[in-house]
């Protein structure tokens, strides 16, 4: 008996599997220990700084445990700084004192606040929070180490600058280094601008460090250790929670949700498609980015000349989804029945599942082709059929048959107990005479009746944009009762419309919502506010946590060097 499934009985697109589980096409299982397509790693520079930090940690441990190293290091320090202090020049001393003073009292607050304001203006809340986290961690580490080591200021020399507390590591140098690195990672685009900023920052930190030695408030090793702590901790914080590949700094405008698909990620996408789905990609392009904010949509050309559609999801999209749902819950209460996803994997599994459920219910949406793991727990690619020749419904004339198809789609969703929850022109594609629903990420099984009613209203609005409300209403009566249509428009208002649909209705100029309400029987408006213990508790919790964090932040401005 043959181990190989006959060619004619194997479903299209499925890899050929033989009895010992070794795939004969590109599809294969990733063995334990083999890295994923895009491993999550610190780059060489960050790793070098972390090794430097670890080196200083060893030195501190030796100094803490034994007397000998402290004596040896202090003797070397005084030898190195001796020539600088002994040769102070009257013309240079005031400048060095000024540099030391500016570095100690002004540099970190100025760089820190410029970064905070610039970051907020560019809507980089995450980077701004990480700046505060980095400064707090650096301040904490510097303080703890300095108290444990208890190193005095340089002995046997005249100190002519400002200082506070113990010397090792130099707290102002550490905070200044952390602030300039944070500023670069928050405001400077990757590449030439960031390199230039880091070179300039290195020069500034070096100048400040030299001034600290000149005025003899720090030893050379105090400055070196502080610069290492400041840079290493900040790089680690940003690399872990705002990696450039996921949260790029750009000033090109447009959606910041879209990931860079060039370089390592582009290669990982190709590699993942080949090894996990057996698809050989020849070209990967962004598609429809202007109407997509919850993922990075891709059009992928394959070796056989066809195309597939893919959506790249990362942790940034997961967090956006969580923030969006928290906002919706605070604003509307339980109506939305929002539950957040715990991981990117769950998020993408949900969309894949919704595609299958919708198709099982007979709804004409894209055929799912599988999920590709790019970085475990961080990035996944949902691959689906590419709607060849498809155009957004807003770009075509809406005929009676398209209106019927759209209304049938909603009726099918109602019948199967489903809701799409994001019906807008960009999510309804017309392919020939077919009306196809895309982007089912917000889809829900057994949604609230309100949500289903809003789906109908939104679909009717979309269809009316390309035709007339009277025609759409007339056709809708073939699928829904007058009461159901009245309920749909009683449940709808500006905020229940996806923002893109709201913009289209506004641009259209016709008062479509009011028009449909006049056509339908009169019905009291459905309240879109639902109060529950959960909503009240959540609102209180968010308010208290926000106020507490702000209060603590304001109270600790001085401790983290921002005043």
């Amino acid at each position, binding site marked *: 008996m043959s181990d190989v499934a006959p060619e004619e009985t194997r479903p299209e697109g499925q890899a050929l599997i033989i009895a010992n589980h070794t795939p004969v096409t590109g599809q294969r299982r990733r063995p334990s220990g083999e890295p994923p397509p895009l491993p999550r790693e610190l780059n060489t520079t960050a790793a070098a700084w972390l090794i430097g930090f670890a080196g200083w940690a060893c030195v501190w441990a030796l100094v803490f445990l034994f007397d000998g190293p402290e004596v040896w290091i202090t003797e070397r320090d005084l030898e190195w700084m001796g020539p600088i202090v002994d040769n102070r020049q009257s013309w240079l001393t005031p400048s060095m004192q000024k540099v030391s003073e500016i570095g100690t009292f002004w540099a970190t607050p100025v760089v820190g606040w410029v970064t905070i304001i610039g970051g907020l203006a560019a809507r980089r809340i995450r980077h701004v929070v990480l700046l505060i*986290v980095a400064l707090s961690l650096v301040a*904490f580490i510097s303080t703890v180490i300095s108290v444990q080591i208890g190193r005095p200021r340089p*002995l046997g020399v005249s100190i002519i*600058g400002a200082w506070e507390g113990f010397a090792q590591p130099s707290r102002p140098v550490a905070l200044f280094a952390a602030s300039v690195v944070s500023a670069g990672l928050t405001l400077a685009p990757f590449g030439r601008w960031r390199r230039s900023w880091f070179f300039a920052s290195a020069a500034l930190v070096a100048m400040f460090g030299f001034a600290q030695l000149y005025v003899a408030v720090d030893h050379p090793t105090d400055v070196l250790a502080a610069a290492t702590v400041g840079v290493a901790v900040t790089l680690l914080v940003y690399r872990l929670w705002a990696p450039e590949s996921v949260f790029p700094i750009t000033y090109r405008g447009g959606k910041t949700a879209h990931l860079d698909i060039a370089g390592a990620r582009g290669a990982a996408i190709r590699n993942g498609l080949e090894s996990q789905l057996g698809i050989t990609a020849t070209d990967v392009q962004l598609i429809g980015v202007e109407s997509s904010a919850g993922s990075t949509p891709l059009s992928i050309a394959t070796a056989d000349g066809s195309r597939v559609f893919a959506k790249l999801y990362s942790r940034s999209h997961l967090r956006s989804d969580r923030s969006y749902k928290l906002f919706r819950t605070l604003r509307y209460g339980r109506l939305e029945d929002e539950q957040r996803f715990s991981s990117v994997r769950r998020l993408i599994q949900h969309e894949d599942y919704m595609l299958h459920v919708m198709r099982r219910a007979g709804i004409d949406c894209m055929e799912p082709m599988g999920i590709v793991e790019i970085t475990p727990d961080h990035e996944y690619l949902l691959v689906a059929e590419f709607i060849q020749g498809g155009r957004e419904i807003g770009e075509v004339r809406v005929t009676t048959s398209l209106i019927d198809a759209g209304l049938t789609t909603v009726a099918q969703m109602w019948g199967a107990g489903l809701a799409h929850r994001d019906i807008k022109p960009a999510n309804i594609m017309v392919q020939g005479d077919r009306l196809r629903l895309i982007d089912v990420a917000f889809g829900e099984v057994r949604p609230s009746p309100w949500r289903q009613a809003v789906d109908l209203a939104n679909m009717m609005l979309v269809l009316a944009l390309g035709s007339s409300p009277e025609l759409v209403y007339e056709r809708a009566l073939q699928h829904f009762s007058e009461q159901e249509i009245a309920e749909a428009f009683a449940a709808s208002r500006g905020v229940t419309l996806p923002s893109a649909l709201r913009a289209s209705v506004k641009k259209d100029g016709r008062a479509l919502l009011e028009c449909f309400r006049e056509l339908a029987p009169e019905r009291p408006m459905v309240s879109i506010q639902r109060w529950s213990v959960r909503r009240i508790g959540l609102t209180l919790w968010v308010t208290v946590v926000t106020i507490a964090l702000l209060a603590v932040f304001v109270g600790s401005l001085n*401790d983290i060097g921002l005043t």
Partner: protein
Amino acid sequence: MRILWTTWRQRCAQLAVSVFLLALTGGCSVSSSLSAPTCENGQSTLIVAQSVPSAELVPCLTELPRGWTVQTVEITQQGTTIRMDSDRAGTVAAVLWFKESCDTSDAVSLPSDLDGAELFEYIVRITPSFRAQRYYVFPGGCVWWDFDFNADNSAALSIDLGNSLVLVSRDALNENIRDSFIDEEL
């Protein structure tokens, strides 16, 4: 083979968040982290001496009387300030200052209980609450107590606390550095 990668990452995140909150809530404040210059431990005493380089004597504290605790210690190039709380006299009931000079024009001279220093005292009021300054003046420096007690607390508390102050000579500290550390001086 790494199978606990996510768990470790979560632990790292939890640790970072804890340290961040601890740091924000005062853990990274220098003044709340420094310990008072005790006469047994020379670490803080050395930078206290460096805070007033002209002073021939340097303050340190022996064991504080029962009920007194150090709240904050600020040691800078401008001098040293130690704020203390008392379970009876109240929050920041006493502050010990160490500066290059002090104004004793309103104070009266008294026989000093500390060698090498002149004592001056200025009593602002005794009732309903005790408020006074006690100055020790010596070449190149001045150490003084600023007492501000809650109502119904007598001046006797200030005597108890005052007894914990010791003035050590800079020469003795320099000798100690040369003997146990390096051949340099403050």
